[in-house]
């Protein structure tokens, strides 16, 4: 990132980190966790210990980091190198990102930015219309539809966590990630000691990966109606039954049809069900027991918005509630060929224009690489 953009963004971040201590807190058991941060154009600094809110606020004011992280893992010695930390356990974490959902709206708000000359284009091109080079970055701007689709995934996840896995609602925290999705953290003593392998299988359960027809009563031969799942059952069997029998009690006709269609047909049906009913989380995040995960209350440098707790998911509006930078007017050169909405205001499209916009919108475009400070 160019220097003058960093100066502008850092100025806005600094103001936030000086004024919004009310939103920034260490998570529970801070002294057992590893903290880390990044500054613009520089590497990650990790293995830090932050004992309390006061130390955290001091660090943020002093460093003005671009991104701040904290481990989901608990350690005896969080500040030592990984091999000496003595891992004790970790919260269960989930990352739901709109970019991983196959949404038709994605193409309407995704841009292609030339990695060489920063020229932004709406349509994917084989080469940059300005400099002719062929390397592009994809950038996506705010979209309400993406957020509601992500919320649906969060709800699916919550249902599995609370019913199948018996994690209490009070133990689950849902955060807006600060960009295009949600971070979910479950602080459950029972699940805390699980290692990476166990979490990998758990995430397959949540995503409905690897299900075989036999588990739902369809073998290669000799099937009977009795072994098919029924809609009253719990877990995936019940969910599959409700899908197969469309919420009605299973009728002999329906059961007969499923059995006569055979094993392979059922396998294909399970695959279809996986795509719609499996929760689309990023499995790498959940499997990682040593991850440092974005710290709630801090700013996401991909957008300038904050990662914040969603108290009520249904009514939560990230582009209003998580857009927390100042609204004093700033001049920038914007090159943003699509329109976006923040704080209920429309911005763009801009074609290399000199514009005056509120600071949160200016920082948003600079963070996305869709504008430059003057």
């Amino acid at each position, binding site marked *: 990132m160019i220097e003058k953009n960093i100066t502008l963004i850092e100025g806005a971040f600094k103001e936030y980190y000086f004024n919004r201590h009310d939103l920034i807190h260490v998570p529970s058991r801070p002294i057992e966790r590893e903290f880390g941060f990044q500054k613009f154009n520089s590497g990650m600094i990790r293995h830090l210990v932050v004992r309390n809110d006061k130390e955290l606020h001091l660090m943020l004011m002093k460093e003005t980091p671009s991104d701040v992280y904290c481990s989901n893992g608990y350690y005896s010695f969080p500040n030592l190198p990984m091999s000496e930390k003595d891992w004790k356990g970790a919260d269960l974490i989930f990352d739901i990102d709109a970019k991983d959902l196959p949404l038709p709206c994605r193409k309407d708000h995704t841009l292609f930015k030339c990695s060489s000359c920063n020229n932004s284009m709406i349509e994917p091109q084989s080469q940059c219309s300005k400099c002719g080079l062929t390397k592009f970055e994809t950038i996506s701007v705010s979209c309400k539809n993406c957020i509601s689709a992500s919320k649906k995934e969060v709800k699916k996840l919550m249902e599995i966590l609370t019913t199948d896995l*018996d994690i209490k609602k009070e133990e689950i925290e849902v955060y807006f990630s600060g960009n295009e999705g949600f971070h979910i953290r479950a602080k459950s003593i029972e699940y805390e000691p699980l290692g990476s392998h166990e979490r990998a*299988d*758990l995430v*397959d*359960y949540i995503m409905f990966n*690897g299900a075989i027809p036999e588990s739902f009563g369809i073998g290669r031969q000799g099937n009977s109606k009795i072994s098919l799942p029924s809609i009253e059952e719990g877990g995936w069997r019940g969910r599959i039954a409700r899908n197969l029998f469309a919420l009605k009690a299973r009728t002999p006709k329906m059961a007969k049809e499923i059995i006569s269609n055979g094993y392979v047909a059922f396998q294909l049906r399970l695959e279809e069900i996986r795509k719609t009913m499996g929760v689309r989380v990023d499995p790498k995040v959940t499997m990682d027991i040593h991850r440092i995960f974005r710290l709630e209350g801090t700013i996401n440098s991909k957008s300038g918005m904050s990662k914040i707790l969603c108290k009520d998911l249904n009514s939560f509006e990230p582009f209003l509630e998580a857009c927390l930078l100042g609204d004093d007017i700033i001049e920038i050169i914007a090159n943003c060929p699509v329109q976006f909405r923040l704080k209920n205001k429309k911005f763009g499209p801009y074609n290399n224009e000199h514009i005056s916009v509120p600071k949160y919108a200016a920082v948003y475009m600079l963070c996305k690489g869709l504008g430059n400070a003057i």
Partner: protein
Amino acid sequence: MLKLGIKDLAKYPFLTEAGEYLRNTGLNLEQLGHPDWKPIVEKAYGRIVVASSGQIYNADLETLDNDSELLSFIVAIILLKSASIATLIKRFSLAEARRAEKYLQQDLWINRDKKNLELPLKIIQDLFGVNVSIANNEFVISVQEYLRRAVHFHEKEWKLVNRRVVNGLVYLTAHETVRLIRTELGEYINSKIQSINIDSIPQSFNQRVQDLIALAKKFSDTTYFSSEYPPCVKHAIEVLERGENLPHSGRFLVATYLLSKGQSIDQISPLFKNAPDYSEKITRYQLEHISGSSGSGTKYQCPSCEKLRSENLCFAIPDCDGIINPVQFGKKRKIQ
């Protein structure tokens, strides 16, 4: 405290209570050296021989003398400890674990509705810290306890997604419940044997100790160096050796790979002895079929790396770079 009878101890001779029972009888090692006890020493030796061949020592607890069942286990441990051969101890532990597994399964199943499950549940809980309870005639354990064990199994049916999971509990049959702890049971028996100290043994045991040393030698002659095998075959053989259920595709891999390396059916078939569903007749039939010496006469080839990957049987290491079939593993390396 749960009162254990001699029959229970004969089924589960590795329990601490078995040692106490023996102490109460006043019998010591010296006395066991007396010729009167020779049948017990022979029984113990037989128990080890059966285990070393990958089979499970079987006893009819209804008709046999339960005291001799328990004693022969103790003497077997003394013999093994004196011979001090790790492979024999490992094989014995695994076979004894599988023997106990059978009884545990029976005890769980028979008593499931009699509320008389104290013993099997106590063993599972005390030894392995697994809390098993009963719901609607089925056995349930927590998701965490299930995952910790099931992740070591490779078959898809053990994936959590293929289980009934409700309210943080996984539903299992009696067979699945004990299958889940087989490895731990084996390790427990192994560690019990390892922890025992024996200063000297009665003279009359010496011959059988020497026989065990000879047996182990014969044994190592037929052991193949798995380090020369590609990691997929190595893994499959390890699964077989642990007595776990290697899926059909994995067994097919082992058979076709070793046949392609020029090994005979006689050399290959013992590898499958530890498989839970082992039958010598069926193994030979399958191997003959794969080798093309029976059936249609088609000689089956070792599956490709790609196929193994999709079957989750590939455990590639850097040395696998550039090969498309496990049979190329050694050859490629030599050229480099």
